[in-house]
């Protein structure tokens, strides 16, 4: 270490003392020479001759002085400074090259850094919890129904917690949308019920107060609450004395016992979304019978691994399946919390990162080509410098330095591009992407850019250096002037550009087709001028089913009386609004229960079918007969009817549903299939039960109108508030935007890949143009001779195009192979199109060949106009 420091000190001192050092060298050399000469003259050689001999013996003083200097201080630093100065001069003299190369670098580095910053924040950065690698989610699974990750029934959660030896802790969590009544107006807020120990499990402690104790789990959870930092700030003005105050949540006063720190980012996955508050969750007789609804988060203990935990939990589940009939066919599994939080977006983001990586490679290829062209123009200069003693190594270093300077220029511009485009990228991101708020250009992104700049510079520099070295000095000096080369320079580049461009464009093409196919899906309902809004009832006033039923009835009646409203109805979960309940169904009269069918269950009124324009294929819908005390009736969708009663009229038959401990409603209607989950999932068997028969406290109002959407929204609000101003109306939006948002991720991927493809085509075009422009320029003399000998212009054009065609076709072959592989990575995101879709491949190939054709045609036509005089002119 001390030696190292001394070296550095010497180096620095040496740099400053340079002139003194040079003088010392000169003096010492002169002394040495004189002594040599003196020895010769002592031996009888005449003075002049003695000196000449001494010099000859000494060899080149300069060569030797350089070696000596080398030792005196590390020459590298000085030469680096020289090289940078030299590179700067070269770049100043070729501004066109500099700007083109730097911009190309900037594009490649900026775009990849922007995408990397998203990947880094969303996928790479570890979760903000203690030892996040040991956090897992435990699921029930039903292999028979192909359900891998199912929410959990309370008794099973309790059994796992009791019997398993794999976990340091296990907590249940369930979202709790609630009405929070803080003056001036009540609000609908998303919170969650969590088992005591949940925060400790994650390794986070409240900034104020404490988390729940085990006692607070009893009776289904005491009325205590922990607030999020954001909620504490917005509703309590960040009051440090907030502990002990109460908040009315769903009409019950809750005592505030804690506030989480601002840095706490609650896990959002499955149906857990944003959380503004938490209250304790505790098993009760009641919720033990609710079926499966709980999310279970656990921490592996130090002795366990995820595989061991999986075996452990599966063994317990096997026991449970034997003990309880409700668990028949059910097992359990364990996944990492990380994969749950980032899982859905992982593959699209990795595809985008890969795509932008290809773009970066294309940018590097283009800059390499530009640099080669520039080096070629400077062949003569390089040859002269070699002839007067510059070593290959030194020349190589200069070329690498030059490309590094270009790289740094490009990197700086690229960083600006990245910072600017990260903002745009975040705005474009689909809403469900986790950890969006932490996306920024930070340390790791800068490191990524540095590596990209360094890698790109070295590649570009080495390729051009390799070329410079392969050109013998003598050959180049001789070849000054006209030259005819048989081989196309940069041919490999043309092939690579075509291949990479093909891969990127195929990916984009497949996504575009996917997006078009998604847009073309008939979702089974009509989104035109429909507003949906959620209404949540709470408090003692609405504790009876009759009161809820009356309230919603009154709201709908008032809405239907509004002039511009064409239809109004309500449904338990709006289309694309989440999974909702599901249950096993069968024909009530069937003796043997075969493969049981699982149907989604929606609670709706007759108006909902009208407002959504879901067609009625047979029978009717609900009416005033479906009172809370009436026997239940059901409307089934086409899929359900076709599955249970193929070729039979289902009207009047009875459906057995496991829901509500088993009901057998009469089928009164068959509705058309509708995509209630999302666009991609085909319509599932669905049973609609009468909302008036099973009134609940939260429902989606669906209102179809004639006029302005804003007026419709206002009408909905007015209708609810006119009846009871304490009732919150929330999640108000048009149905069209609900559907649009569900395609946000596909839109994002499609847009980005299309943009990458456009840039790739541009880069390919420019790159190919560059190669052939250079080729034609180099062969001017040869072409001139051909023209002079009578070759027609068209012949010359064909000559150039022929050279291009060979390369382009090789590129297409390589690219098609690459694209087939790359598209397989995209498979999970495709819809309505095969990953090896021939139409896309053919169209993209034609497009690439067209780009290559245009990029070659310009230089080719220029070649055909070469004057035959060129042939006889000399430099």
């Amino acid at each position, binding site marked *: 270490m001390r*030696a190292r420091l*001394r*070296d550095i000190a*010497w180096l620095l001192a040496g740099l400053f003392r340079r002139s003194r050092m040079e003088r*010392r*060298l000169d*003096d*010492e*050399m002169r*002394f*040495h020479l*004189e*002594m*040599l000469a003196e020895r010769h003259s002592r031996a009888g050689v005449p003075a002049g001759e003695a000196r000449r001999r001494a010099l000859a013996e*000494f*060899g080149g003083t300069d*060569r*030797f002085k350089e*070696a*000596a200097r*080398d*030792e*005196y201080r590390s020459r590298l630093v000085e030469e680096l400074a020289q090289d940078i100065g030299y590179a700067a001069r070269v770049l100043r003299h070729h501004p066109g090259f500099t700007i083109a190369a730097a911009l190309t670098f900037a594009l490649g580095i900026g775009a990849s850094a922007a995408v990397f910053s998203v990947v880094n924040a969303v996928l790479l950065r570890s979760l903000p919890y203690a030892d996040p690698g040991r956090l897992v989610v435990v699921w029930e699974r039903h292999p028979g129904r192909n359900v891998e990750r199912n929410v959990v029934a309370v008794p099973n959660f309790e059994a796992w917690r009791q019997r398993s030896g794999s976990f340091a802790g296990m907590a249940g969590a369930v979202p709790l949308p609630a009405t929070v009544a803080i003056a001036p107006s009540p609000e609908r807020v998303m919170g969650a019920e969590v088992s005591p120990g949940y925060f400790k499990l994650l390794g986070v402690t409240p900034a104020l107060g404490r988390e729940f104790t085990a006692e607070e789990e009893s009776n289904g959870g005491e009325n205590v609450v922990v607030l999020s930092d954001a909620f504490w700030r917005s509703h309590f003005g960040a009051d440090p004395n907030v502990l002990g105050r109460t908040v009315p949540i769903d009409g019950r006063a809750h005592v505030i016992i804690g506030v989480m720190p601002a840095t706490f980012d609650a896990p959002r996955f499955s149906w857990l979304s944003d959380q503004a508050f938490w209250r304790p969750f505790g098993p009760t007789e009641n919720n033990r019978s609710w079926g499966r609804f709980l999310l279970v988060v656990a921490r592996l203990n130090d002795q366990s691994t995820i595989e061991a935990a999986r075996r452990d939990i599966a063994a317990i589940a096997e026991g449970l399946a034997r003990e309880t009939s409700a668990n028949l066919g059910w097992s359990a599994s364990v996944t990492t919390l990380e994969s749950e939080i980032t899982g859905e977006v992982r593959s699209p983001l990795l595809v985008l990162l890969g795509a932008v990586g290809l773009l970066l490679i294309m940018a590097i290829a283009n800059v390499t080509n530009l640099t080669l062209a520039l080096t070629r123009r400077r062949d003569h200069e390089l040859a002269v410098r070699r002839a007067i003693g510059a070593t290959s190594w030194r020349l190589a270093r200069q070329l690498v330095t030059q490309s590094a300077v270009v790289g740094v220029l490009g990197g700086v511009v690229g960083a600006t591009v990245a910072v600017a485009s990260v903002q745009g990228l975040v705005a474009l991101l689909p809403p469900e992407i986790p950890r969006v708020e932490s996306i920024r250009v930070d340390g790791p992104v800068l490191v990524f850019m540095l590596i990209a700049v360094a890698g790109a510079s070295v590649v570009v520099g080495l390729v051009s250096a390799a070329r410079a070295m392969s050109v013998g000095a003598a050959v180049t000096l001789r070849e000054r002037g006209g030259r005819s080369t048989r081989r196309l320079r940069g041919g490999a580049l043309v092939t690579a550009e075509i291949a990479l461009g093909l891969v990127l464009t195929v990916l984009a093409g497949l996504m575009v087709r996917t997006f078009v196919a998604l847009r073309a899906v008939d979702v089974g309902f009509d989104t035109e001028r429909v507003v949906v809004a959620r209404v949540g009832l709470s408090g003692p006033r609405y504790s009876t089913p009759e009161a809820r039923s009356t309230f919603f009835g009154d709201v709908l009646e008032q809405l239907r009386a509004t002039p511009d409203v064409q239809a109004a109805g309500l449904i338990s979960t709006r289309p694309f609004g989440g999974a909702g309940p599901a249950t096993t169904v069968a024909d009530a009269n069937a003796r043997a229960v075969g493969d049981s069918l699982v149907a989604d269950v929606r609670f709706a009124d007759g108006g909902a079918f009208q407002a959504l324009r879901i067609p009625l294929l047979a029978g009717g819908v609900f009416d005033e007969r479906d009172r809370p005390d009436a026997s239940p009736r059901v409307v089934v969708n086409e899929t359900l009817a076709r599955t249970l009663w193929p070729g039979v009229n289902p009207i009047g038959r009875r459906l057995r549903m496991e829901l509500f401990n088993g009901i057998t409603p009469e089928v009164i209607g068959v509705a058309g299939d509708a995509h209630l989950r999302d666009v991609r999932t085909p319509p599932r068997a669905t049973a609609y039960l009468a909302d008036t028969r099973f009134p609940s406290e939260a429902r989606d109002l669906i209102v179809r109108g004639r006029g302005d959407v804003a007026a419709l929204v206002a009408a909905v609000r007015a209708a609810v508030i006119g009846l009871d101003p304490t009732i919150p109306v929330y999640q108000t939006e048009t149905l069209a935007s609900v559907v649009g948002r569900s395609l946000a991720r596909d839109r994002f991927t499609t847009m980005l890949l299309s943009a990458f493809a456009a840039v790739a085509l541009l880069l390919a075009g420019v790159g190919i143009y560059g190669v052939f422009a250079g080729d034609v320029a180099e062969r001017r003399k040869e072409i001139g001779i051909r023209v002079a000998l009578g070759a027609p212009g068209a012949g010359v054009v064909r000559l150039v195009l022929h050279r291009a065609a060979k390369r382009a076709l090789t590129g297409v072959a390589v690219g098609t192979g690459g694209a087939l592989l790359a598209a397989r990575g995209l498979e999970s995101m495709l819809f309505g199109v095969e990953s090896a879709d021939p139409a896309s491949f053919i169209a993209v190939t034609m497009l690439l060949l067209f780009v290559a054709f245009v990029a070659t045609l310009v230089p080719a036509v220029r070649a055909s106009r070469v004057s035959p005089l060129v042939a006889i002119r000399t430099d």
Partner: protein
Amino acid sequence: MADRGDVLQGTLDMLVLKSLQLGPMHGWGITERLEVGSERVLHVGQGSLYPALYRLERQGYITSEWGLTENNRQARYYKLTSAGRKRLADERATWARMSRAVDLVLRMGEG
């Protein structure tokens, strides 16, 4: 850049240090000392000598200053430092061990 009669790779530093053990000397004098000392077997070219001198100086084994020769000429005189003396001792020990080892190997099977 090979010099005729080049000294064994790696031994130049040791020889330079050794020659300076006899007293401070300039570059030319060092070459003479080595040539004479080796009965003209070893020839140290200035192409290796001066880089070696600068290297040793940088490493702190020798120091240098201007001085006058017997003929009243300005010359740069090099002098061993105590670190240089120690280095020389180390190198000699290593050299002795190595040359004995090489010698042993060469005499294998020759009784």
